[in-house]
C-alpha cells in the first residue's frame, strides 16, 4: 500500500517560557524548599532537561498544610459560595486564555501528542473549572443534604498521564465545595501544575487556598499522612492506593481513590467494523495507552475475529509515532524510562507466556523513550498481559462466542474501572451495560470524558467518583 508522507508540522514551543528552576507554591508564593533536594524534570521525547524542581520534605509539607488550614479557617471556608464561584470562573477563563501555552508545556513535559493536549486535555481542564464554578453557590442542591459542609484541607496526589486534567478533576470540586488544597503533581510532570500556580496568582486567589508542592512518592506519603489533612484524594496505581487506604485506617480522613484498570473492549459480530476499529485504536493507543481506563483487553466475537484483526493491523500501520509537538503525531513518547522498562518487561512476559506479538513497522526516534503500538494475539485469561495493567500502547486480544462468555471474561479481573461494548443491537448494549462490573461503560464509543459525567471504579479500581454532582460528594460532609 502506498502512503503519502507527511511533512513535519511542529507546534512552536516559543509560546512557553520555562524557568530554569521552580520552588514550592505555598501560601500564594513560590518559596524555596527547606528540607528537600532539587530534582530535574525532562522531556521524555528528547531527554532534554526542562527545569529543576524542588522536592518538598516533611517540613515543607507541614508548611503547606498549615497554609491551607489557615486559608480554610480565615478566608475560603467563610467566603460566600457566590464568591468562590467567581474565583473558579476566573481560573477557567485564565486557562482558556493560556490554553495553547499550557498544551505545549504539557506535551513537552509529558510526551503526549500536541493534538491530544490541545484538543482533549486543555478543553476538558477549562470545562471542569467552569462546571464546578457553578456548583459553588448551589451546594444545597447537590444531593448531599440541605446544609452540606466542606471537609477542610484536602491532600491531593495526582499521576503523570493527564497532569493538568487530573489537577482540574481534583482542585475544581474541592474548591467549589469550600475546601482548601495541597496538591502534589507527579515527579515526572510537575510543570503544568506550577504554571497553574501562576494562574492562581493571576486570579488573585487568596493565599493558601491552593498549594502546589512537588516531589516523588515520599512527599506524597508525607502529605497523605499529615495529621492536619481532612481529606485524601489520589489517582494512580492500585498498589499505592492500597498503601494509602492502609495509612489512613483509624483516622477521620475521608478518602477517594481512582486506581488502575484492565478494561475489556468487547466487539460483537454485528458491530460497525470501521467505527469499531477506530474505537479500539482510540481505546488503547490514545495517550500512549497511559490511561487507567484504557481498553487494554480486546474481546472479539470469534466470527469476526479475522476481519477485525486484519483491519486493526492495517490501521495500526498508519499510526504516526514521534515528536509530540508535531501536529500529525498520533502516538507520542512514553512518559519515563521507568515506565518504558515496565512496558518492555510485561511485553516480554507476554511473549514468554506464549502470546504472539505484533507491531507495525515504525521508526522510533533514537533519543527519548518510545514504544511502538503493539498487539498480542493468542492471549489467555491467565496470561499476565491479560491481568495486569501495562499502562502503555499494548493491546491483548481474546475471543468469545456468546454474550455470557464475554461478560464472564470481561468481569474476570480484580479491576472495574471501565468497559467498552460494540454492537448494533440496542437491547444488547443495555444488557451488557447492566452486566459489566465497571464504573464507566462506553457503548459504541470509548475514552470519552466530560465534567458532568461521573467517573470512577468498582472493586480494586478504587472508590468515589469524579465529575458531575457526584464528584462534589467526595468533598462534602453529609
Amino acid at each position, binding site marked *: 500500500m502506498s502512503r503519502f508522507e507527511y511533512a513535519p508540522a511542529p507546534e512552536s514551543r516559543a509560546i512557553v517560557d520555562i524557568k530554569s528552576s521552580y520552588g514550592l507554591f505555598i501560601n500564594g508564593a513560590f518559596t524555596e524548599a527547606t528540607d528537600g533536594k532539587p530534582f530535574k524534570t525532562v522531556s521524555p521525547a528528547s531527554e532534554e532537561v526542562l527545569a529543576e524542581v524542588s522536592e518538598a520534605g516533611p517540613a515543607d509539607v507541614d508548611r503547606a498544610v498549615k497554609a491551607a488550614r489557615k486559608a480554610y479557617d480565615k478566608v475560603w471556608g467563610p467566603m460566600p459560595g457566590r464568591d468562590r464561584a467567581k474565583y473558579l470562573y476566573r481560573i477557567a477563563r485564565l486557562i482558556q486564555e493560556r490554553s495553547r501555552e499550557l498544551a505545549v508545556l504539557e506535551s513537552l513535559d509529558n510526551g503526549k501528542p500536541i493534538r491530544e493536549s490541545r484538543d482533549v486535555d486543555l478543553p476538558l481542564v477549562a*470545562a471542569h473549572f467552569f462546571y464546578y464554578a457553578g456548583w459553588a453557590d448551589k451546594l444545597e442542591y447537590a*444531593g448531599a*443534604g440541605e446544609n452540606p459542609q466542606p471537609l477542610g484541607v484536602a491532600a491531593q496526589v495526582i499521576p503523570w498521564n493527564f497532569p493538568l486534567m487530573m489537577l482540574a478533576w481534583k482542585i475544581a470540586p474541592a474548591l467549589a465545595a469550600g475546601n482548601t488544597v495541597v496538591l502534589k503533581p507527579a515527579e515526572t510532570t510537575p510543570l503544568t501544575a506550577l504554571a497553574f500556580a501562576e494562574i492562581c496568582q493571576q486570579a488573585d486567589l487568596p493565599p493558601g487556598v491552593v498549594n502546589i508542592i512537588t516531589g516523588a512518592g515520599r512527599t506524597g506519603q508525607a502529605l497523605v499522612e499529615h495529621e492536619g489533612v481532612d481529606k485524601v484524594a489520589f489517582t494512580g496505581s*492500585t498498589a499505592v*492506593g*492500597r*498503601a494509602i*487506604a*492502609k495509612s489512613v*485506617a*483509624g483516622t477521620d480522613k475521608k478518602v477517594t*481513590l481512582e*486506581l488502575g484498570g484492565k478494561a475489556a473492549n468487547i466487539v460483537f459480530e454485528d458491530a460497525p467494523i470501521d467505527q469499531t476499529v477506530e474505537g479500539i485504536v482510540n481505546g488503547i493507543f490514545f495517550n500512549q495507552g497511559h490511561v487507567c481506563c484504557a481498553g487494554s483487553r480486546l474481546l472479539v466475537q470469534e466470527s469476526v475475529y479475522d476481519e477485525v484483526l486484519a483491519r486493526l493491523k492495517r490501521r495500526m500501520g498508519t499510526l504516526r509515532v514521534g515528536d509530540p509537538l508535531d501536529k500529525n503525531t498520533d502516538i507520542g513518547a512514553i512518559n519515563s524510562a521507568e515506565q518504558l522498562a515496565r512496558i518492555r518487561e510485561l511485553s516480554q512476559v507476554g511473549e514468554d507466556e506464549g502470546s504472539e506479538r505484533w507491531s507495525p513497522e515504525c521508526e522510533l526516534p533514537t533519543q527519548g523513550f518510545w514504544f511502538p503500538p503493539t498487539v498480542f494475539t493468542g492471549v489467555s485469561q491467565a496470561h499476565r498481559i491479560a491481568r495486569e495493567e501495562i499502562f502503555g500502547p499494548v493491546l491483548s486480544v481474546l475471543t468469545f462466542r456468546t454474550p455470557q462468555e464475554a461478560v464472564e471474561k470481561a468481569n474476570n479481573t*480484580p479491576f*472495574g474501572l471501565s468497559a467498552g461494548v460494540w454492537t448494533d443491537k440496542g437491547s444488547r*448494549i443495555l444488557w451488557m*451495560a447492566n452486566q459489566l462490573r*465497571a*464504573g*464507566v*461503560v*462506553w*457503548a*459504541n*464509543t470509548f475514552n*470519552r470524558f*466530560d465534567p*458532568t*459525567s*461521573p*467517573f*470512577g471504579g*468498582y*472493586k*480494586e*479500581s*478504587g*472508590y468515589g*467518583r469524579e465529575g*458531575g*454532582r*457526584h464528584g462534589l460528594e467526595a468533598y462534602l460532609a*453529609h
Partner: protein
Amino acid sequence: MVWRPTLPTKDGARLDVRKTYKLYGGGAFPRSESGRSYVVNDAKGKFLANASQASRKDARDAVVAARKAFGGWSARTAYNRGQVLYRIAEVMEGRHEQFSAEVAASEGLSIGKARALVDASIDRWVWYAGWADKLAQVVGSSNPVAGPYFDFSLPEATGVVALLAPQDSSLLGLTSVIAPAIVSGNTAVVVTSFERPLPAVTLGEVMATSDVPGGVVNILTGSASEIGPWLAAHLDVNAIDLAGVTDHEEATALEAAAAENLKRVRRPADEDWTESPGLSRLTQYLELKTVWHPIGI
C-alpha cells in the same frame, strides 16, 4: 425472660419447648461447623440460651453463600426487592411479642421500652423497603455532556457486604445495618452482637420465611473480634461496616486489612439508632455506573 410459646394453662401443667439458637447461612440453620457454642445471659446475668459460636470457616461459608446469592438478588427488579423487604416487616409484626421479650432480656429493658424498639425496627424495614425503587432516581443522574452522547449514571450494589452489627442495640441497630445494605441488591454476612445475639437469630428465622432468597442475609452469632479480621481480609468481600467494633485499635486493624482489596469501609461512629438514618448508609454500599452512547441518525 425469653419468649416462650406458653399456653394459658396452670403453672407447670405443660413443659415448654425451648428453641435452639443456630446460625443462619445460605437459607439454612446450621450449628457452627466448629461445634462450639457459648452461653448467652440476660442483662442481669441469668442464663438465656447457648448460642452457636461461629468460626472462621462459618464466616467463609457465609461469604460463599452471599456471593452465590448476589447475582440473583441484585438482578431482581427494585419493585420486587422492595416487596420482599416489606414482607420482612410484616412477618416481624407477627413475631412482635417474641422480639420484644428477647430485646428486653438482651438489653435489660422494660417490656414497654423493648416493644418501642421493636416498633421502630419494623418501621425501619418499611422505610427502607420503600427506598428500593426510588434510589436510582434520587442517586442517579442524566449527564448533559458537551457532545452528541446520551450519558447517564445509575447506582448498583457493590456486592458482598460484611456487617459487624452493633454490640448494644440488638434489634434496631441490627436492622439499621442490614436493611440499607440489602435493599439495593447487596448480599450480607452479619456478625451479631456477641452478648445480645438472640434477636438476630430470630430475625434470621424471619428472613427464612419472608421470601428473602437464601444467602442474601447470613447471620453469624459469635465474636466480631474473632471473625471480623477474616471478613475484613476476605478477598471476595466488597465492603465492610465496622459498626459493632468498639475498640479503636481493633477498628484500625480491620480497616487496614480491608484495604487489601480496596473494600468500601464504614468506620465505627457514635450512632443513635433511634434517629432517622438518612441516606449515608444506603449509599455507602453503592457503586455508580456511567453509560455513554453516541446520538446520531
